[in-house]
């Protein structure tokens, strides 16, 4: 158990790093450059205290200061401390110059790091967006859109922000620590021992704080989630709240959540209060130690005044990045969580992991051969479906709710794969056909179409990779009965629809979706209850124009409408996961079964008259039961006849 857990942990760590490594493509050199720049900046920032020391001791104090040989000889050539004493401005200039170089390096670091971080974010965003399109069809059945959007936006932003600032700043803290300690040792060993002992304490303290704060952050996030959840619920149920006049009650509920969030977050802030307070005290104590020891030793002449000052300067400069450590670790923790969340999404299996490579013409006969399928293991939907659709034939599919009609047509477009059996078009198993090719040839129109917040032109042209000419658009629109809809829209083809634009009715959307698929000029057209929201007459008209325009194209239509079913060449009836009947309208109404029952309802309405229908309506299942009994009688008759 434990070993397994460790395995998972290492696995997680490697995927995090792998994701980051890949996202850094194209910006790795920039990050290296930024890290070098900040390392150099750290180096420069220990030089200016040395200038200060030299100025105080050698120039102003007239003492000798041990310098590296080359620098010493350079200064000697100029005239040494006394020359500089006559030209103090040179010291000021040196100090300012160090600052300018430092600033320049910081600029380079900022430029490189933020450019690199933006590039990283761009990589991640594009990978995530492409991934969304690669996810298997069924992934979206259970997907939580809000959470996915969050992974693709705020989690990426968390990573970007960390990479732009703190990622390289970790390098700075380390470089600064190393350079400072080296310089300190070279100047004075004793002072160094006074100047650094509290630093590891601050580091340990920061780490402990980081561990504690995680929980407080989680609690605050959770409380905020609960608050938003309650708010969302109340906003959605606003009618109920108003109608029952329960404003006071809801106010109380909201108040409780609001109070809880406030309290939990205040505790978080208080924790930060302790952190900054204690770490501040520790850092100031470190400076204090330097101040006191330095004063003693400088007073006794063991060290120079310049050394005293330089140690004060170095210590206080070192303290800030050390003190920031708790903050940096906290943000690092958040970034790792964000990387995990992004990583989980990126690690999802891809739709094209299992793809065929053939690209044949798919205008032949379609054969379903003993197809088995289950959305969830153990709950089979299709249990051996076999039938053939001849090239150019129109076949309608009828079945009860949950009979697997949608599964059947999705299998045809390889949006899901059969568990057993195969589907062939023109004799070729569609498993061997490239999915994109298959979907270009098999035009599937789902029941609930989705239109993007773009113009009508753009929405339709999507089907042709964004390139559709005017004539093709007009023709597809005319065939799908969309022309009338377009005329009613303010800007016609340029009208933006979808969420950010004009809201179309369900029927209008369905017509747009059909036109969109027609633009592909598919070899097989599949309508999955795709005209359910238009009225019967429009439905017939659209089917007629489809026939006129694309006559001879193999068509599969899932529908409940008797007019639609009756007009098909043949009808397949799906029941209990198998084909229970198949034949022409005339054949199917002549024998007992589901199709006949549906047909009888329609006829029954004409026969019994509306008044009786009203009586039936008060008790609709009576009719269903009667039909069932009727069937059984007929079936018994049929069995008798055979015997």
């Amino acid at each position, binding site marked *: 158990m434990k070993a397994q857990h460790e395995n998972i942990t290492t696995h997680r760590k490697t995927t995090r790093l792998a994701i980051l490594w890949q996202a850094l493509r194209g910006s790795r050199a920039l990050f290296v450059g930024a890290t070098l720049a900040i390392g150099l900046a750290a180096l420069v920032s220990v030089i200016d205290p040395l200038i200060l020391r030299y100025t105080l001791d050698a120039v102003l104090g007239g003492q000798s200061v041990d310098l590296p040989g080359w620098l010493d000889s350079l200064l000697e050539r100029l005239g040494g401390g006394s020359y500089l004493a006559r030209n103090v401005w040179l010291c000021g200039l040196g100090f300012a110059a160090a600052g300018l170089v430092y600033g320049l390096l910081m600029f380079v670091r900022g430029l490189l790091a933020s450019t690199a971080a933006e590039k990283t*974010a761009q990589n991640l965003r594009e990978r995530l967006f492409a991934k969304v399109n690669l996810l298997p069809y069924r992934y979206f059945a259970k997907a939580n859109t809000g959470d996915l959007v969050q992974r693709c936006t705020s989690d990426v932003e968390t990573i970007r922000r960390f990479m732009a600032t703190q990622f390289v700043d970790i390098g700075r803290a380390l470089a600064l620590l190393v350079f400072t300690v080296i310089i300190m040792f070279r100047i004075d060993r004793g002072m160094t021992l006074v100047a650094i002992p509290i630093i590891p304490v601050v580091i340990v303290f920061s780490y402990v704080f980081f561990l504690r704060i995680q929980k407080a952050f989680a609690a605050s996030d959770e409380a*905020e989630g609960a608050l938003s959840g309650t708010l969302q619920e109340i906003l959605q149920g606003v009618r109920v709240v108003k109608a029952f006049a329960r404003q006071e009650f809801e106010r109380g509920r909201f108040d409780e959540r609001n109070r809880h969030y406030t309290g939990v977050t205040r505790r978080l802030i208080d924790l930060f209060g302790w952190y900054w307070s204690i770490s501040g005290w520790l850092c*100031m104590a470190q400076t204090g130690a330097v101040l006191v020891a330095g004063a003693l030793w400088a007073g006794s002449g063991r060290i120079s005044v310049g050394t*005293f000052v330089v140690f004060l300067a170095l210590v206080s400069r070192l303290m800030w990045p050390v003190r920031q450590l708790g903050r940096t670790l906290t943000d690092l923790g958040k970034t790792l969580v964000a990387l995990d969340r992004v990583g989980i999404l990126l690690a999802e299996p891809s739709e094209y992991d299992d793809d065929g490579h053939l690209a044949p013409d798919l205008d032949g006969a379609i054969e379903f051969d003993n197809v088995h399928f289950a959305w969830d293991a153990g709950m089979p939907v299709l249990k051996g479906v076999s039938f053939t659709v001849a090239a150019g034939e129109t076949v309608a599919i009828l079945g009860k709710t949950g009979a697997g009609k949608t599964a059947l047509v999705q299998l045809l477009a390889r949006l899901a794969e059969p568990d057993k059996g195969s589907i062939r078009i023109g004799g070729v198993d569609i498993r061997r056909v490239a999915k994109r090719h298959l979907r270009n040839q098999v035009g599937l129109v789902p029941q609930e179409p989705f239109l993007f917040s773009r113009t009508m032109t753009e929405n339709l042209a999507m089907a042709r990779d964004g390139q559709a000419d005017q004539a093709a658009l007009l023709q597809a629109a005319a065939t799908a009965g969309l022309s009338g809809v377009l005329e009613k829209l303010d800007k016609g083809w340029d009208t933006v629809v979808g969420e950010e634009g004009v809201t179309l009715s369900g029927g209008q959307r369905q017509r747009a979706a059909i036109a969109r698929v027609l633009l592909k000029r598919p070899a097989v057209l599949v309508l999955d209850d795709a005209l359910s929201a238009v009225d019967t007459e429009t439905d017939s008209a659209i089917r007629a124009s489809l026939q006129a325009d694309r006559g001879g194209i193999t068509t599969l239509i899932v529908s409940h409408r008797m007019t639609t079913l009756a007009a098909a060449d043949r009808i397949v009836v799906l029941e209990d996961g198998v084909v229970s009947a198949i034949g022409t309208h005339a054949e199917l109404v002549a024998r007992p079964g589901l199709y006949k029952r549906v047909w009888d309802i329609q006829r029954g309405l004409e026969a019994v008259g509306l008044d009786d229908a009203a009586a039936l309506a008060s008790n609709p299942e009576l009719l269903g039961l009667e039909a069932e009994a009727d069937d059984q009688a007929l079936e018994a008759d049929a069995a008798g006849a055979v015997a």
Partner: protein
Amino acid sequence: MEEVDFRQPFKLATWRGILKYALPYKKSFGLLVGMMMMVAGIDALSPFVTGWVLDDVIIASRPDLLPRALVVYLVMVSLQAVVIRLFIGMAGKIEMGMNYAIRQAAFDRLQELSFSYFDKTGSGWIMARLTSDIGKLADIIAWGAVDMVWGGTMMLAMAGLMFARDWKLALVTLSVVVPLLVVSVLVERALMERSRLVRKTNSKITQAFSEGIRGARVVKTLAAEGVQNRAFGELSLTMRRASVKQARLSAFYLPVVIALGYVGTGLALWQGGGSVLAGTLSYGTLVAFVFSALQFFDPVTDLARIFADVQYAQASAERVVGLIEAQPDIVDSPEALAREKARLADGSAVPRLSGRVEFRNVSFAYVPGLEVLKDFSLDVAAGTTVALVGETGSGKTTIVNLACRFYEPTAGSIRLDGQDYKELPLAWLHGNLGYVLQQPYLFSGTVRENIRYGKLTASDAQAEQASRLVKAHDFIVDLEHGYDSPVGEGGSLLSTGQKQLVSLARAVLADPAILVLDEATSSVDTETERLVQDAIDLVLEGRTSFVVAHRLSTIVDADLILVMKDGQVREQGTHRELLAMGGYYKKLFEAQFLEETEAAVLA
């Protein structure tokens, strides 16, 4: 996402609307300012303490003063630590306190706002105002004050100390402030401009993801991944370009501040060094000046950031104030208010209405000028069941909205028990009203809590009785924790039929004189369907009800049917009368009959 123009001038009135919520924290703010000034003062003082140690202890060779210096330093440092802890707690208190108060005020206003507001305003928009906008404002007010007072005080105190010690040297050292100010103003202005594009593009990216995810299935069936990825690639490139442009400017600003700080320090070293050599300045003072100059510019970038944040936050402030100050369309008239006050003073219950509803020449328009109901009159006797039928969007809910006074007529009047309902307090009407959505909305909580929503004072026995009446009791006791079983968010742990039964029990418990029932379009499984149907009949019995009807049985049994089309009442009468007319109703009925019987077979 709405575009925000960040160049608009500072609006005092808007900020006053927000700062109102800081008033209860006046004292805390005072303390906070005091503490920040203290922290800043100690920060400003510390270079001079170092200078003093240098001159008076080291150079003057007075190691005996050291213990005293040590004590002073320790006291200063410990005081600083305590104050830091206190001010962070205080700022947190103010931030979260304002956060709480503004959110609660916004929520209270939401509870008062009329339906028209929610029709015009999406819940996503409201959520964003109540969460991120309010958070941003409280943050900037509390922590902005912290940074500003600290930065301002430290710079002023430091400048003061420097000028007091040696005004000429101070003048030279701080001369870099002038170019710094110029650069700051220029950079901030340009940054605002550039960050506008970044924010705009960012919201487009969020939208692209949200749409891309919801539309991913369609993309797949169309094999249109290429178009999608290309379009997103363009957006993503725009984002990177805009961000890099902005980042470049930010990357430039910080180093400029740092470098100018060094230049100032270099100037101090030059001038001060000369004075030290001339014997007119002590070592300690020079060191104090050098350390001060290095520290002086620390707050500059923070201050610049606050100015930018305040400007960004103004848009948030406007939206939040706009929400809090939005006026409900429907409010009690003064007379109605007086009646309600009198009732509350008595402590008596809301008077019970008999349930007679009259529409008198009612006209109504959601959008001024676009009348959807014109001169409509109808007298509904107490206890009548009125069915509203028609296609989606034909105006059925308009009648319901008017009857419930979610909206008021633009002309004409609606009378309850003979008096114009505008004269009645809203609470009286809603106290007599029950509302059952068949796409029922349950609140997360237990079954019992949801039933009791109909009457908060009901006892457990009463709640149980109500659920027995609608035959919900059996399924409830079969749940794992019976009446205490959680229903999940939006009731997701119950089936649709179960949710319907609970919502009916809720309505029965409320025992309203007027009931509004919004039937579901899609049916549930036949078994539950039967239970629900029986429960509905029971609930409708003996009270005035308006039913947005989809089920034939409900329609056929109604006392009166209003047939709606294009916002108008096209036909009205009983089922038989309407059938005999052979008009629109007959067509609707046939279609519905077909659909329902087919559904019964195909379910």
